[in-house]
C-alpha cells in the first residue's frame, strides 16, 4: 500500500467522522486505526476565536465587577499616558460623561486631592492626577496648553463626537474623512487636552498616504506665500496691530466658518487654549482677529467696524451664511456705504466700503476696527487715554452725547459711540500689544482698571496681564516675552 493511499484512506475516515458516520475501521491497519482514533477525539475541537473571545469577556467582566476597590489595570502595556489636570475629580466625571470612561481606582489625599487615578476608555487605561507643582506636575491650565494630543479610536466617530460635545467638549476640528483612511476630528476637553477622535474606515498604503501628504504640503506652501504676499509683515507677532479683537464665543469653529464664508477670512491656526477652549487666529484684510471659546466659557461677543472691498457682496454673503440683518446697506452721509449684520454668536459686524482710501479717514485705520458702545462714552475715552495713552482723533456729538468718536491706541484706532439701546453695551475682549506690559498694566490699574491677572510669562511666548476696565471690557495687555 503506497503512502498516498494511506493518506487518502485516513482522510476518508476523517470525512466520515465529520459527517458523524462511523468510519470503516476493519479495512485499516492498526497504525491507521490509531490515527483515526486521534481524529475521533479531535471532532469538536474548540474554536480558537471562541477561546480568545471568552478570555476577553472574562477580562472585561473583571474590570467591571470591581466591588472591592483593588488596583486594576489592563494587561500590562509598555507605554501608557499619564496626564495632569487642574481638577482630576472633575476631569474623571467629564471623561465618564463625554467619553464613556470607567473609573478603575483612585488614591486620594485627606483633602480630596487625587494623587493618582486610573480610568479606562475603550480598551485602554489612562492615568491622571491633580497638580503637584512641587514635583513639577503641572496642568495645561497652568502652563498654557498641552503639546500632547491624545488619539482615541472609537467605533462611530460622528455619534461619539456629538455625545462628547453635548457633555461639554469643544469641536476644534470638524469630523471629516482623512486621506490616511480615518474619519476623524478633534475635540478639546475643558481641562486643556485635545483629543483626536477617529474611526478607521479603510487601509491606505503608506506610499499613497505620502503622495497625499506631498500634495497637502504643496498646497500649504502655496497658501503661505499667498498670505505672506498680502499680509507681510503683519503676520509676525511683533508687527501685529496694537488693538486686536479677541472674540470669545460658544462655538468658535462655526464663527471661523462664518467669517471665512462672509468676509474671506484666512485661518492661520487653531489650538486648545489654556482654559480648555479653542484659540484660533484668522486674518481679515490687513488685520488679525483672535477667535476662541467653548461651551463652558462665558462668551464675549464684539462689535466690529469692518472695511471690505465690496460691502454689498459681503453683506449678502453674511446673511446667506446665517447672520441676521441689523441694517441694510445704504450710502451714509459720512463718506461710506455700509450695512450691519449680527452673526449667530451675537457679534455685530458693521460692514463698510469707503469711497476714499481708509488712510484719509484716519491715519491708522485698519480693516478691522473694534467698535465700543459704553455707557458714558466720555468716561470711556478718559479711561483709554489714561490707561493706554489713547489719543482722540475726532468726535461727532449731539449736545452732550458722543454719537461717534475715534481714538488712536498705538498703531490702531478704536471707535466708539454712546450706548443708545439696552443691547448696545457689548463688553468685549481686546488683545493689546504694547512695549512694556508691566508699565502699561500699572498705568491701567491707576486709571481705574481692575486686575484679572498680574503680568505673567505665558508658555505661548507672550508676557501678558489682564485688566478689566470699568465698562467690563477685558484688555489682554501683551508683548513677546523678553529673552
Amino acid at each position, binding site marked *: 500500500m503506497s503512502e498516498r493511499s494511506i493518506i487518502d484512506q485516513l*482522510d476518508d475516515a476523517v470525512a466520515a467522522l465529520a459527517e458523524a458516520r462511523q468510519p470503516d475501521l476493519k479495512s485499516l491497519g492498526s497504525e491507521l486505526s490509531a490515527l483515526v482514533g486521534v481524529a475521533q477525539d*479531535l471532532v469538536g475541537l*474548540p474554536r480558537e476565536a471562541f477561546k480568545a473571545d471568552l478570555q476577553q469577556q472574562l477580562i472585561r467582566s*473583571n474590570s467591571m465587577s470591581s466591588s472591592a476597590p483593588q488596583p486594576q*489595570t489592563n494587561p500590562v502595556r509598555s507605554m501608557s499616558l499619564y496626564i495632569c489636570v487642574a481638577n482630576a475629580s472633575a476631569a474623571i466625571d467629564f471623561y465618564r460623561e463625554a467619553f464613556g470612561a470607567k473609573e478603575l481606582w483612585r488614591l486620594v489625599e485627606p483633602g480630596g486631592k487625587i494623587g493618582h487615578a486610573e480610568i479606562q476608555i475603550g480598551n485602554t487605561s489612562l492615568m491622571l492626577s491633580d497638580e503637584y507643582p512641587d514635583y513639577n506636575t503641572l496642568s495645561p491650565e497652568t502652563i498654557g496648553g498641552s503639546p500632547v494630543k491624545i488619539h482615541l479610536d472609537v467605533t462611530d466617530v460622528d455619534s461619539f463626537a456629538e455625545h462628547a460635545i453635548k457633555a461639554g467638549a469643544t469641536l476644534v476640528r470638524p469630523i471629516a474623512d482623512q486621506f490616511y483612511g480615518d474619519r476623524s476630528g478633534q475635540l478639546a476637553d475643558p481641562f486643556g487636552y485635545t483629543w483626536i477622535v477617529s474611526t478607521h474606515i479603510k487601509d491606505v498604503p503608506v506610499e499613497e498616504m505620502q503622495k497625499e501628504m506631498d500634495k497637502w504640503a504643496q498646497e500649504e506652501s502655496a497658501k503661505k506665500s499667498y498670505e505672506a504676499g498680502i499680509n507681510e509683515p503683519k503676520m509676525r507677532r511683533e508687527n501685529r496691530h496694537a488693538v486686536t479683537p479677541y472674540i470669545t464665543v460658544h462655538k468658535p469653529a462655526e464663527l471661523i466658518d462664518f467669517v471665512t464664508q462672509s468676509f474671506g477670512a484666512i485661518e492661520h491656526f487653531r489650538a486648545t487654549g489654556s482654559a480648555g477652549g479653542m484659540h484660533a487666529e484668522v486674518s481679515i484684510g490687513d488685520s488679525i482677529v483672535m477667535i476662541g471659546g467653548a461651551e463652558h466659557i462665558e462668551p464675549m461677543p464684539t462689535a466690529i467696524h469692518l472695511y471690505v472691498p465690496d460691502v454689498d457682496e459681503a453683506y449678502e454673503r453674511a446673511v446667506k451664511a446665517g447672520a441676521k440683518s441689523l441694517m441694510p446697506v445704504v450710502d451714509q452721509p459720512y463718506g461710506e456705504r455700509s450695512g450691519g449684520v449680527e452673526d449667530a454668536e451675537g457679534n455685530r459686524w458693521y460692514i463698510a466700503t469707503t469711497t476714499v482710501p481708509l488712510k484719509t479717514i484716519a491715519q491708522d485705520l485698519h480693516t478691522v476696527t473694534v467698535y465700543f458702545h459704553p455707557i458714558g462714552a466720555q468716561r470711556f475715552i478718559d479711561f483709554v487715554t489714561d490707561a493706554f495713552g489713547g489719543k482722540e482723533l475726532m468726535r461727532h456729538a449731539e449736545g452732550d452725547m458722543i454719537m461717534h468718536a475715534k481714538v488712536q491706541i498705538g498703531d490702531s484706532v478704536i471707535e466708539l459711540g454712546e450706548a443708545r439701546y439696552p443691547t448696545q453695551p457689548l463688553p468685549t475682549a481686546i488683545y493689546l500689544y504694547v512695549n512694556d506690559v508691566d508699565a502699561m498694566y500699572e498705568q491701567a490699574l491707576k486709571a481705574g482698571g481692575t486686575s484679572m491677572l498680574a503680568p505673567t510669562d505665558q508658555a505661548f511666548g507672550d508676557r501678558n496681564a489682564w485688566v478689566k476696565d470699568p465698562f467690563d471690557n477685558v484688555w489682554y495687555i501683551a508683548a513677546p516675552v523678553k529673552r
Partner: protein
Amino acid sequence: MTQATESEERLLIEAAQNDPSRFAELYEQNFHRVYAYVARRVRDRAEIQDLTAQVFHQALANLGKFKWRGSPFAAWLYRIAANAIADQARHKVRESADEPNLSSDSSTATDLEEVERRARLFSAVDKLPEDQRRVIVMRFADEKSIREIAGELQRSEGAVKQLQFRALENLRNRLIEKK
C-alpha cells in the same frame, strides 16, 4: 497541557484571588479541560460554548470563595461544570416536558481520565508545526472540507491531506509520550 504542579497551581490561584487580572493564567491552564468535560456530555457546539463560558464566569465570580483542600483546581471547575450541565438539562426538561435523565454526578474515574486525555490532545494541537496546526484547526474546529482548506491555504488538496496525516501522526506520538 503542561501539568502545573500542585504548588504552582496553588500560587496561581492565590495570585488570581488577589488580582483578578491574573485569572488569565488559570483560564489558559484549564480551558481545554472544562471544554472537554462539557463536550463529553453535550453534543451541540453552541451549547458546549455557552456552558464553558458559564463555568468560567462563575469560577471567576466565586474565585474568592475557593479554598485549597488538596484537590486540584480542575476538580472545582468540573463541579461547577456538572452543576451547569444539570441546570441546563432541568431547564430543557421544563421546556419540553420530557422524562428527565439526571444523574447528579455521573463523573466516574474513567470519565475524568477521558476528559484529561482529550484536553491534553486539544492542547497538543497548539504545539504542532504551524502549517499542520492550521489544517487541524480548520478541519476539526472550523469544520471545513479538504477542498475549502486547500483553497484558503492555496495548497493542493493532496498537500493538505498529507499535512493532516502528519499532524495526526504527531499528535498520536505526543499522546504516547505523555503516557
